[in-house]
């Protein structure tokens, strides 16, 4: 066999291997789909009290009534900038975990929020990370309430004690949003699959070129 012919054969072999590898890499991510995860997010804030929240349809649960697992998930979320993600099966019974498609059935935004949230009533002086509720809203709300009166006639500046009381009330009721969803696109699971797809495309392209220059 002449050296040139040998080189062409080698090129075509490499090309065929690359095409086969590329096709396999295009298929593999479909065979191993990304596993959903359970999201726990405490960033959704509320300034309402228990009565108002229950009237809106939220389930209000005292922190002490939660299972140790649920308490742990809540505390981790608070410590982790309001986010905590765990695998399916590692959630807590007290939390609802609707899927994306289940939530898509709600047309009303608030109904969707309620279906995927519960409100945790934090105990006073508890050894918990600080609540991430909108505490600054207390000042505005106190001013609104004192300026409103019956007919908007009474106008008094709210005292610091009143504002602090409202702050405590806001901090007591913490909304935690829980749902089942795909892991974030930037997560390892997605990045691995994306990389496989892209390498697969390059494999088919390069292998195809090597094969076509041989024949």
């Amino acid at each position, binding site marked *: 066999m002449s050296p040139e012919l040998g080189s062409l054969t080698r090129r075509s072999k490499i090309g065929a291997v690359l095409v086969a590898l590329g096709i396999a890499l295009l298929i593999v991510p479909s065979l191993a789909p990304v596993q959903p995860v359970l999201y726990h997010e405490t960033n959704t804030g509320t300034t309402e009290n228990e009565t108002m929240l229950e009237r809106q349809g939220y389930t209000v649960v005292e922190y002490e009534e939660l299972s140790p697992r649920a308490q742990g998930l809540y505390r981790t979320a608070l410590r982790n900038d309001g986010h905590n993600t765990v695998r399916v099966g590692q959630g807590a019974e007290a939390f609802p975990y609707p899927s*994306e498609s289940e939530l898509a059935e709600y047309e009303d935004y608030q109904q969707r929020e309620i279906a995927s949230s519960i409100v945790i009533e934090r105990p006073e002086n508890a050894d918990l990370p600080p609540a991430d509720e909108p505490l600054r809203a207390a000042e505005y709300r106190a001013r609104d309430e004192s300026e409103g009166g019956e007919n908007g006639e009474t106008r008094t500046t709210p005292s610091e004690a009143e504002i602090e009381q409202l702050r405590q009330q806001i901090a007591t009721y913490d909304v935690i949003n829980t749902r089942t969803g795909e892991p974030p696109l930037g997560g390892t699971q997605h990045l691995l699959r994306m990389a496989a*797809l892209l390498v697969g495309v390059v494999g088919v392209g*390069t292998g195809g*070129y090597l094969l076509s220059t041989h024949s």
Partner: protein
Amino acid sequence: MAKKDFRGARRSRSLWAVATLLGLVTALIGYSYEAYQATPTTSVQRMFSQLVLLLMLLLPIVALVASYMSIAGERESGGVKFLLSVPNTRRDVFVGKFVSRLGIVCAGVVFMFVTAAAGGYARNGTLPLTLVAGLLAMTLLYGSVFVSIAIAVSSAVAARSRAIAAAVGSYFVLVLLFVVPGLSVFMIAQWVHRTLLGMEANLDLYNAVTYVSPLTAYRKGTNMFFPDEMEQRVFQRAADASGDLPVYLSEEVSLLVFAVWLVVPLAVGYLRFRGADLQ
């Protein structure tokens, strides 16, 4: 003839590089597209509707670039005399070039769809096959139209510079003129009809004028495969318009528009090539 040209073209490194690049883009779109709180099927459908928008602008460029020099290049280099010296007629050369370039463009389109589908399926675990097959068929038709136009242009001119100018001009007239806001065929038709001729406004007439473009036919034709809520709004309607569009603006008419754009440029191009002085 077609086989020889196809073999020659597929050895091009730049062709494979472009195909790979487009495949990477479509695989990335296929995998990373995420519809907000939608079912997996809806998510894949929306991803393909985005792909259609991309191909609407990109595919004409690919088809024109792949074909505009096919015959003009042979004429400029003198290679056409060699092609015709062996027992090949001008028709053989013309048809061979068309079939070969059509094969290349169609292979590229299929590759893009395969990578997008692989990405979409890997992400969502579902693939609406009827939608994908329908869109693929419409996209192949759309690409074929621009190959037909490019081959016609290429056969009608004898120099590279003129072939480039004609290809760029085709893209401007048949694509950009239908998407650039403020300078659209719809507005030109409206201006001629109302201002120049002083007639009553007739939106259906202006829509019909717009429908002669392969781009509009592609947008309208792909609507046949999408669910109602995902269909593109292609034609303008009056604020008080009710009921269906007239028959000549229906989605099925897009197939007729494609057929005309496939046949007429090829016929004109062939007639020009047959009567051209190749000396």
